[in-house]
């Protein structure tokens, strides 16, 4: 039997690599999800993005309510 890519050793290595890739992908997804949960507290994220948005300005909202 010649050493080929189909050798049992390669199958085990390939399985380990795929398994580790899946675990790392899930870990990245979990850390990303955790970041969103921590930053937003569950609410949608909004911020001033280089342009003035009156709806995000507390003073503007108070002025309108008067």
């Amino acid at each position, binding site marked *: *039997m*010649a*050493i080929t890519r189909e050798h*049992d*050793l390669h199958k*085990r*290595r390939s*399985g*380990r690599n*795929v*398994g*580790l890739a899946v675990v790392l992908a899930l870990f990245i997804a*979990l850390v990303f*999800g*955790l970041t*969103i*949960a*921590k930053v937003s*507290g*569950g609410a949608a994220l909004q911020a001033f993005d280089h342009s003035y948005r009156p709806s995000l300005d507390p003073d503007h909202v108070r002025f309108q309510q008067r």
Partner: protein
Amino acid sequence: MTDLRTDITYATPGEGSFGDYVALLKPRVMSLVVFTALVGLLVAPGSLHPVEALAAIIFIALGAGASGALNMWWDADIDQVMKRTSGRPIPAGKVAPGEALGLGVALSGLSVIMLWLATNALAGFLLAFTIFFYAVIYSMWLKRATPQNIVIGGAAGAFPPLIGWVAVTGSISLEACLMFLLIFMWTPPHFWALALFMKSDYHKANVPMLTVTHGRKVTRAHILVYTIALVPFALAAGLTSIGGPVYLALALVLNLMFLQGAVAIWRRDEARAEADGYATEKRVFRFSLAYLFLHFVAILAEAALANLPAYAAFAAQFKILEVF
């Protein structure tokens, strides 16, 4: 090229499959940890964001798995001798001992830091202490030193519901302590029942189980005494905010059955046990698993039923224990 032999297929340490590395984490123990930690987390007052809760459970389980890998690294010599554990990755030659140590240390650090970041510092500290307790206090010290190894070592398995609770509340309370004590007091009779019918294994490995050092008659008496000591803690949990009438009713039945089994074990002698192949000991061991599982199911059921206003008002009469 005829000198090259390519027909040798034995496993070289370090070339194990992905499943062999998962086996190092003791997945069956992890499933029990996930369940009890989840109950602690779900019944605790307050709430976590679902992603935070998921992360907490995953990292508590990963911490438990890491301590399992460290245990397998340290106990490889014992595992090789015992029939029950000889198929584990290290004695089977699938994973090198150093790899198990590396995986255990790396996952310990990762799980503690991630649990801290996902929830709070106290939860992270308790997970770190649990790993230290299981890997160092139990595996490295007590297991080979004293027949009381199971009694004190049981604390390691008792921490997960406490950590789940602390992950939500950030503090330790009476309810969390009683969930801890329920598992802590349950562990000795559970493992000694196992030791009674797995006798040759522990004897062969030179592990000072009570059966080996003090004899089987003393072990039978210890099972009864520890089962009696377990009952007040199991029932007391029913009188706190996590308990209620459903829990109390179920706990009463389960504790009576466990006591009955412990008395049956205590009354038997070796000749009778040998004659029926340790039937009673095996039955009590299997029942003890259901005993613990059903107590935590009942705690979960009480939390679910508390959403019904009529039931919550009725159950409030039973919740008389509140210390801190």
